[in-house]
């Protein structure tokens, strides 16, 4: 049977069919739906972990216990998980372990566009790159087989256009996989220097064997046509087929280690050789190092994502498309978003805001303009402490702002640092009871698991107190006066403080009654427009279809010209 599936759905299906029984992840676009779909298969124990490092460590344990395991994350998640990643490359596995890295060329939804293929090379681990949904499914099984046969974790690297593109996938049956017995083996699993030296030798030997596998594995496939040759992998294969239908193509599915002999043979059969890949010259540099002449990045560049148009333009086959002059439509905080008031207040207090990653990163955009930095998950708190260390005046002029999911992901250790090293930092935890940015996933603070079961709910207040913070307050995100007062008092406090700003995400609760502008009272001062609410339009006029009745505009209006439905009519 064939079914339309996204790459992410297909990976989940692949895990199911290949007998995976444990899967862990932390959400992150474009990887999130992998675990959401895996959770639909009752035979797989699937979970959200608090962050990617923990997810991978859970995967390592499950593999030790003999299960087949899938761990998924977005590309920057592997930075967080890099520590265990680099060392399981040494220990190898028991049950097969595949790590899916979903890269985001073009940064549709990311803070950078790093090329995670280098994580395979850096670790000395095999790398698979599927070119469509069908392959995404098949490569999961293949990855697990390679993992077990060669005693190695495997990196399955996809990109946004694999993750979020759909195509027809042939479904198969699940093949149960019995747990392999766990055998105690300190030389393999206890990576103290004396043992690790031996295991590094194993990594090198394993790579030599994998290079032989790369020469014969059917997913490294030569398609001979004309005298122009192209070496490519992943979704770029599809673009090459569109733009250069007559070219001979060496399509690589296993892209590390490379099949040197086969590449040499292919190079000899063509007159000119291109390497077409997105982002870094990962294949190109290795092929050049073999002494083979190729053209690659001088054609396509290293920036952003490719597509058939860009490829055709970079090969000089087509003209670039004309620019269109239509106003951009950047993303915005939703109407009723509980983050809005926080940034309104911080902006009005003229504070420097060390920001973090989540929906609230949109607080950096006009008209709120209220965020100074956004680096990586968890960076807000440490960098606020750092500013203060450079010059103590920052204690009263800056705050750190971090979402609840992000705080539990990587905010606890920097807060501990603030307490331990005598900082005075004020931290606002924006607790909307969900991981909103990536589509409302649960986390340890929501009281539910990925499977929808009830779970213990972490008490943020107690948690923060246990880290040593004494000044803790809870404020309603819709109460601007209390927010303002709380922030003012806490930045002046001579010790660290945490303000937990509370309100569920507006998309998770039913809307309130829309607000209405009383035209007789409104003098068009424009203050409400500074909230940057999509429901409020110049004039001032409130779109009742969009408004969720949060009441912020009522609070900021100096003339009491905005009321709830009922107020205005009475």
């Amino acid at each position: 049977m064939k079914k339309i599936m996204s790459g992410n759905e297909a990976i989940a299906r692949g895990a199911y069919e290949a007998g995976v029984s444990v899967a862990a992840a932390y959400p992150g676009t474009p990887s999130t739906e992998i675990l959401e779909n895996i959770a639909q298969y009752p035979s797989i124990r699937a979970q959200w972990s608090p962050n990617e490092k923990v997810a991978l460590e859970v995967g390592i344990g499950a593999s030790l216990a003999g299960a087949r395991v899938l761990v998924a994350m977005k590309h920057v998640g592997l930075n967080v998980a890099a520590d265990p990643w680099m060392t399981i490359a040494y220990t190898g596995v028991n049950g097969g372990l595949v790590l899916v890295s979903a890269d985001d060329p073009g940064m549709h939804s990311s803070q950078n566009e790093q090329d995670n293929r280098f994580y395979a090379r850096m670790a000395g681990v095999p790398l698979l790159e599927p070119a469509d949904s069908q392959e995404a499914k098949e490569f999961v099984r293949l990855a697990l087989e390679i993992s077990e046969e060669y005693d190695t974790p495997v990196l399955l690297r996809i990109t946004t256009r694999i993750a979020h593109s759909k195509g027809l996938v042939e479904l198969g049956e699940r093949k149960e996989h019995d747990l392999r017995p766990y055998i105690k083996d300190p030389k393999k699993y206890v990576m103290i220097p004396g043992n690790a030296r031996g295991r590094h030798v194993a990594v090198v030997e394993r790579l030599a064997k994998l290079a032989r596998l790369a020469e014969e594995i059917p997913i490294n496939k030569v398609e001979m046509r004309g005298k122009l040759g192209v070496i490519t992998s992943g979704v770029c294969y599809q673009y090459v087929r569109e733009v250069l239908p007559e070219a001979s193509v060496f399509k690589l599915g296993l892209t590390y280690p490379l099949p040197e002999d086969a590449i040499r043979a292919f190079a000899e059969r063509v007159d000119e050789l291109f390497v077409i890949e997105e982002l870094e010259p990962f294949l190109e540099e290795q092929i050049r190092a073999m002494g083979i002449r190729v053209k690659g990045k001088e054609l396509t560049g290293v920036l952003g994502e490719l597509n058939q148009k860009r490829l055709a333009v970079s090969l000089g086959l087509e003209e670039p498309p004309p620019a269109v002059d239509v106003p951009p439509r950047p993303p915005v905080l939703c109407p009723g978003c509980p983050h809005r008031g926080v940034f309104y207040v911080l902006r009005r207090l003229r504070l420097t805001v060390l920001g973090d990653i989540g929906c609230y990163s949109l607080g950096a955009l006009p008209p709120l303009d209220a965020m100074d930095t956004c680096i990586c998950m968890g960076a807000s708190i440490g960098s606020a402490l750092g500013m203060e260390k450079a010059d103590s005046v920052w204690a009263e002029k800056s705050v750190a702002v971090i979402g609840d999911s992000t705080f539990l992901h990587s905010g606890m250790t920097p807060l501990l640092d603030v307490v331990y090293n005598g900082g005075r930092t004020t931290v606002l935890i924006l607790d909307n009871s969900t991981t909103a940015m990536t589509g409302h996933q649960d986390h340890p603070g929501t009281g539910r698991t990925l499977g929808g079961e009830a779970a213990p709910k972490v008490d943020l207040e107690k948690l923060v107190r246990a880290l040593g913070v004494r000044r803790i307050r809870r404020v309603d995100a819709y109460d601007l006066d209390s927010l303002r007062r709380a922030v003012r008092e806490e930045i002046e406090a001579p010790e660290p403080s945490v303000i937990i700003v509370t309100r569920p995400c507006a998309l998770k609760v039913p809307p309130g009654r829309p607000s209405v502008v009383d035209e007789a009272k409104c003098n068009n001062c424009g203050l409400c427009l500074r909230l940057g609410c999509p429901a409020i339009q110049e004039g001032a006029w409130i779109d009742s279809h969009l408004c969720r009745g949060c009441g912020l505009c009522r609070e900021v209006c100096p003339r009491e010209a905005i009321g709830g439905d009922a107020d205005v009519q009475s």
Partner: protein
Amino acid sequence: MSKVKNILLVGVGGQGIILAGKLLAEVLAAGGFDVKLSEVHGMAQRGGSVVTQVRFGPQVYSPLVSPGKVDYLVAFEQIEAWRWLSWLGPGGLLIMDEQIIYPAGRTQVTLPEDLTGRPGTVCLNARRIAEEAGLVKAANMVLLGALAAHLGIELEIWYRVLENSVPLKYLESNRKALEEGFARAKPSAG
């Protein structure tokens, strides 16, 4: 390969474009075509411009559509129609919801020309039609219905896919919205 057809569904995050794309892809697959679709998730979904690209034919390689090659541009809103208009290929059809959703903080956008009067365009008030069909949220179905009239895939297939994808209590109104769109799919003269 020239037989591959290209569709763009364009609009604003939250308008139901992802669901529309999913239905469309399933209908095309059920109609016997190879299908690929590419969509946008994450940050842009928060009220930003979104686009779902759909391609179908005997065999489809790339999931992405190229500018100047679009056969059917289905715009859920006028400003986004403008953003993508130059992607229409020769003989391509614009199907558009006449509403305008302004980018946050703007109340006016001067568009180069009023697309509602563009010759050869199917222009609809999808929200109103959907409301009359019993479900405002089914505006996406109205637009799909108009597209369906041009794709030549039997309505029976659309119904079957709808049945499998829409909760029972919304099925009737969605079906109605689809039919209403189908009935109004005639492009303006020009």
